[in-house]
């Protein structure tokens, strides 16, 4: 299968997994909250294609796409959302904390910006161990205004660490436009100057463009050239989270971006037959995942997994 078709299919799987998550929410089978990444699949898939399997990635509460792109199954993700024992995190993490350590996807973090220093630390570790791994932090436009962003970029630059900072600029924080609270036009790329780092602004909805941008940054990182800031321009199709109808977005804007759907853009470069076949495979994988997740046993172990020995004992 050619690269683009493979990437298309992965995006199709992510899209359908999130659609399933939404439907399961409406059916009362997913609780809490979810933040769909629909519309932003190309960032995750293009980036993952550019990485080695042993490279580290860190994501946010909006991390379904990154988790699946690094190899987690739709079933394990959906089972997590459905509070099942077979979920990625055994039902203890939920949508906001999807983690697939077996694929070096080292977690989804729900405190904005908190994972940027962690990615820096993973890159530092790789450098010290001489493993030639790199680390990638994915974060939103809103994260560029929090202190941890600044500290992370400076430290990474000073230590010339193999880390790539990938901002998914989808124009909004929760309900407020990033432009209204940020002193520069491109919240990530226009900050790179403060750390003497290379930056580029990337079409985040074209999976091939994403892949080549991340490839270049990853190569620089691996070659000892230090960190890069990539600002991916993209858009979320839905509201910030389950409860958000996103009425604050002008309909022309939504339409414009829907017309630039990453799946459509990729599909346009593939044959109709290939796309249809990939869609069918994706459909099947996700449908089976939903059934398997539904059938799985419920989460258990509220008092396990605090300590490395598996317990939560804090006193004698």
């Amino acid at each position, binding site marked *: 299968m050619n690269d683009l078709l493979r990437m298309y299919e992965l995006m199709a799987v992510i899209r359908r997994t999130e659609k399933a998550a939404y439907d399961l929410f409406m059916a009362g089978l997913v*609780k*809490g*909250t979810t933040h769909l990444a629909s519309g932003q699949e190309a960032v995750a898939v293009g980036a993952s294609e550019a990485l080695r399997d042993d490279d580290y990635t860190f994501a946010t509460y909006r991390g379904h796409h990154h988790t699946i792109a690094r190899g987690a199954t739709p079933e394990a993700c959906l089972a*997590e959302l459905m*509070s099942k024992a077979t979920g990625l*995190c055994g*039902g*203890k*993490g*939920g*949508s*906001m*904390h999807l983690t697939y350590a077996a694929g070096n996807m080292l977690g989804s*973090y*729900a*405190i*904005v*910006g908190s994972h940027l220093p962690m990615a820096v630390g993973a890159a530092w570790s790789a450098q010290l161990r001489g493993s030639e791994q790199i680390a990638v932090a994915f974060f939103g436009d*809103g*994260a560029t*205004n*929090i*202190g941890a962003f600044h500290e992370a970029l400076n430290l990474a630059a000073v230590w010339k660490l193999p880390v790539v900072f990938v901002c998914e600029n989808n124009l909004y*924080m*929760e*309900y*407020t436009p990033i432009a*209204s*609270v*940020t002193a520069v036009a491109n919240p990530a790329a226009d900050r790179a100057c403060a750390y003497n780092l290379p930056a580029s602004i990337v079409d985040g909805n074209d999976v091939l463009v994403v892949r080549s941008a991340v490839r270049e940054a990853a190569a620089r990182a691996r070659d000892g050239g230090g960190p890069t800031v990539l600002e991916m321009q993209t858009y979320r199709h839905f509201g910030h989270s389950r409860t958000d109808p996103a009425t*604050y977005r002008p309909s022309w804007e939504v339409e414009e971006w829907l017309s630039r759907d990453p799946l459509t853009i990729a599909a346009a470069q593939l044959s109709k037959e290939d796309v249809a076949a990939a869609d069918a495979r994706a459909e099947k994988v996700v449908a089976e995942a939903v059934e398997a997740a539904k059938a799985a046993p*419920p*989460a*258990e*172990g*509220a*008092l396990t997994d*605090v300590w490395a020995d598996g317990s*939560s004992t*804090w*006193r004698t």
Partner: protein
Amino acid sequence: MADMTYREAVAEGIAREMRLDPTVVCLGEDIGAAEGVFKTTVGLFKEFGPTRVWDTPISEQAIVGAAMGAAMTGLRPVAEIMFSDFLACCWDYLANEIPKVRYMTGGQVTVPLVVRTANGGGLGFGAQHSQAVENWAFTVPGLKIAAPSTPADVIGLLAAAIRSDDPVVVFEHKGLFASRGPAPPAGHVVPLGQASIARQGRDVTLVALASTVPIALQAAETLAADGIEAEVIDLRCLVPLDMRTVLESLARTSRLVVVEENPYQGGWGATVVSIVADEGFELLDAPIRRVAGECVPLPFADSLEAQVIPTAARVIDVVGQLAAY
């Protein structure tokens, strides 16, 4: 009196003070045009406009730090930290700056500000959006701490907090936002540091706060059917801490159970117990028990979360043991 939700009471409580005092200003993430992610600032932006209600970047340190600077210079800012877990992102201001500046300047500077935040679990938001962290604030001398359990108390305590010349952290409980209660009359103020007796009883004292008040009341109803009359004290505030009301109740009941959502280790209930074990020792007819959060992060799955935060069933169980003592 008409009923209102706890959520509505927050916006109403702020609005009442903003109408009275033009130096009251609000700042926080998505609190303006979006009216708050918990809809606790509905109507404020419309009524008071962008010079009184300010949307901020995701910059918790700047939010609370700027509120501090503004409070030192003539305003009464009301800063929102969206989820109380995020207090950790500006903890320096809560722990080291705001509560200390009056003392360390020998009284030269006062900081009349309010930090409001949505606290607590029970909604399946997972480890980083569900904590009850009122005990974090309780470790810091120099902060006043309110945590209302009813819509009327929300309004009354917000009034007292906003009018206070001292910094006050107001913990609004996420699990209570949808709950209803009578709307208080105009001018309603609940002074900081006065507990209320939410239910009278002679057999055991249940000390509760915010989310655990309805839990304790529910437990008390069930216990009453078994002939055990529990007195339920709603502390309303952790600082000032109304120990007089607790000790007076204990003088009547001789038995104490503290019901708190924060984890057992380092929970505020421990301080309440330690005061009782000292000053109320002779009043006690039985061991003191705490029904608190388990000492684990908050799990996502609802079935697991229910096992780690206090429930009426656990309270009933513990009171039953004490009654049999």
